[in-house]
């Protein structure tokens, strides 16, 4: 079919083939000369079993999980709150709010990373001044620089940037709820609060599930923010290392360690498995249980 050929061709060559080939490569190993030989599960054993590598791997996976949890607990609830407020009837300036709130989402993660790096920098002292004005100056710390808070800070920066996405998706879902239903609940005597939790919320559950899985995929694929703010080493002391940065380092090498495409492919394959598990869980467990209601 002439209509399908170009799209399928490019897609297959630059997406499916590399994905499949990466999985294949993860079972091979290259020696110093570049000759490639089959290695079975050796790469996986190295990553998960080798004391040096496994610590890095589990560290990155754990950090990534925390990164995701912060998004689920902060980004999506804020998105839900904003969407719920935006969808209230007869809200003035609705469109202006919507446009402005979505703004950070449109900017590059790299730019946002730097913006916050400057703002949180003790050198500049902007955040310190601000906290001082609120009487909270004793709380100020170089959050990005400390091992204990760097990952959380980066997660929150990412939340700040991407809160627009759940907001918009949930907002769209709320708009799809017919006015009649809400009015029927008003007649039934329900207040805003009850209408939200008993009528609207159950009806947007499928959207919330979708937002969750999108968050999951995006988080386990994240790289740019950490790389921009912390570099490939994801410091301090790998405390902000996530799967994306681990992949990059393994692939291209860093400092004294040489890059290894095959080991990099192994990391990528493991990321793929994590994402696949998430997506399958969503498709077969969550989506099955949730009913979509014809509205």
């Amino acid at each position, binding site marked *: 079919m002439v209509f399908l050929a170009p799209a399928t061709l490019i897609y297959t060559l*630059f997406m499916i083939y590399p994905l499949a080939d990466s999985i294949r490569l993860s079972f091979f190993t290259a020696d110093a000369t570049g000759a490639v030989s089959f290695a079975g599960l050796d790469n996986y054993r190295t990553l998960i079993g080798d004391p040096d590598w496994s610590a890095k791997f589990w560290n990155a996976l754990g950090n990534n999980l925390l990164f995701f949890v912060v998004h689920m607990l902060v980004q999506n609830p804020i998105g839900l709150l904003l969407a719920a407020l935006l969808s209230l009837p007869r809200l003035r300036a609705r469109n202006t709010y919507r446009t402005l709130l979505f*703004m950070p989402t449109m*900017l590059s993660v790299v730019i946002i990373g730097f913006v916050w790096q400057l703002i949180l920098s003790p050198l500049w002292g902007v955040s310190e001044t601000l906290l001082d004005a609120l009487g909270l100056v004793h709380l100020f710390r170089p959050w990005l620089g400390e091992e204990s808070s760097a990952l959380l800070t980066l997660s929150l920066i990412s939340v700040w940037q991407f809160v627009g996405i759940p907001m918009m998706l949930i907002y769209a879902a709320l708009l799809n709820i017919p006015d009649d239903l809400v009015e029927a609940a008003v007649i039934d005597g329900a207040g805003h609060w009850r209408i939200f939790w008993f009528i609207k919320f159950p009806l947007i559950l499928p959207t919330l599930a979708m937002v969750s899985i999108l968050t999951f995929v995006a988080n386990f694929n994240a*790289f740019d923010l950490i790389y921009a703010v912390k570099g490939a080493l994801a410091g301090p002391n790998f405390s902000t290392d996530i799967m994306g940065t681990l992949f990059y380092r393994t692939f291209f090498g860093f400092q004294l360690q040489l890059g290894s495409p095959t080991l990099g492919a192994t990391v990528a394959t493991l990321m793929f498995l994590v994402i696949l598990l998430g997506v399958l869980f969503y498709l077969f467990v969550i989506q099955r249980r949730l009913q979509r209601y014809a509205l």
Partner: protein
Amino acid sequence: MIRPRKAIHAAGVHAILLLYTLIALWPIFLIVINSFKSRRAIFRDPMALPAADTFSLVGFEKVLSRSNFDVYFLNSVIVTVVTLAIVLLIGAMAAWALSEYRFRGRVLLALYLAIGIMVPIRLGSVSILQLIVDLGLINTLTALVLVYTAQSLPLTIFILSEFMQQIPRDLKEAARCDGVSEYEIFWRVILPLTRPAIATVGVFTMVPVWNDLWFPLILAPGEDTRTVTLGVQQFIGQYVTDWNSVLASLTLAIIPALAIYLVLSRQLIRGITAGAVK
């Protein structure tokens, strides 16, 4: 009486929304105003707007002289526009074929094309790099265009074919009865009707491409092929202590993106809220 209660209610809602709008915009605003100030003013009073005595364009001068910002910008524009054009054209063609013709393996093909919506293309980077090297395309914008095209196609095809399915059959059949060829139906009937969805898909394609750091970093890190995102990242890495330059380069990256966003936001938001993404 519920009127005063309602007013308080509305005030509360606006207070929350305003607060969050402030949180969302303040950092960006801060960067932009400080980029127009002298170094001393940046540190002395970061929150102040640039005034006559603190106004300075030194950062911008440095950025423009020390880096090829114009080249980066042009590269980004080329990559984005070319990708967009290719994706929309071949994506629409594929979407049309998938939504209109019943052929064997249609569902299978649709599923095959949908894999890319959920699986990030980055995971194939190792092989993509190898492939690009083998094709001799390393450090070319073509490499970026090809990869971004592949990256954007799945969602484009998905959204467009959903949309095309809603076009009434009668329209196509009326055209067929008039003896119009399939190509002409696509060009003259389907594409114009798909315009609203195409606009949405266009924005969805553009934004990630414009903002991406990963592929420029591994496929086209050369000075001549850098995109704005990578250029800014590299520049800041190099001049990290020169606050004027850093702020100016960020502002240079922010302003065009926001300008484009403001122009297209109506379209984009309409697209999202019309349920183009489900």
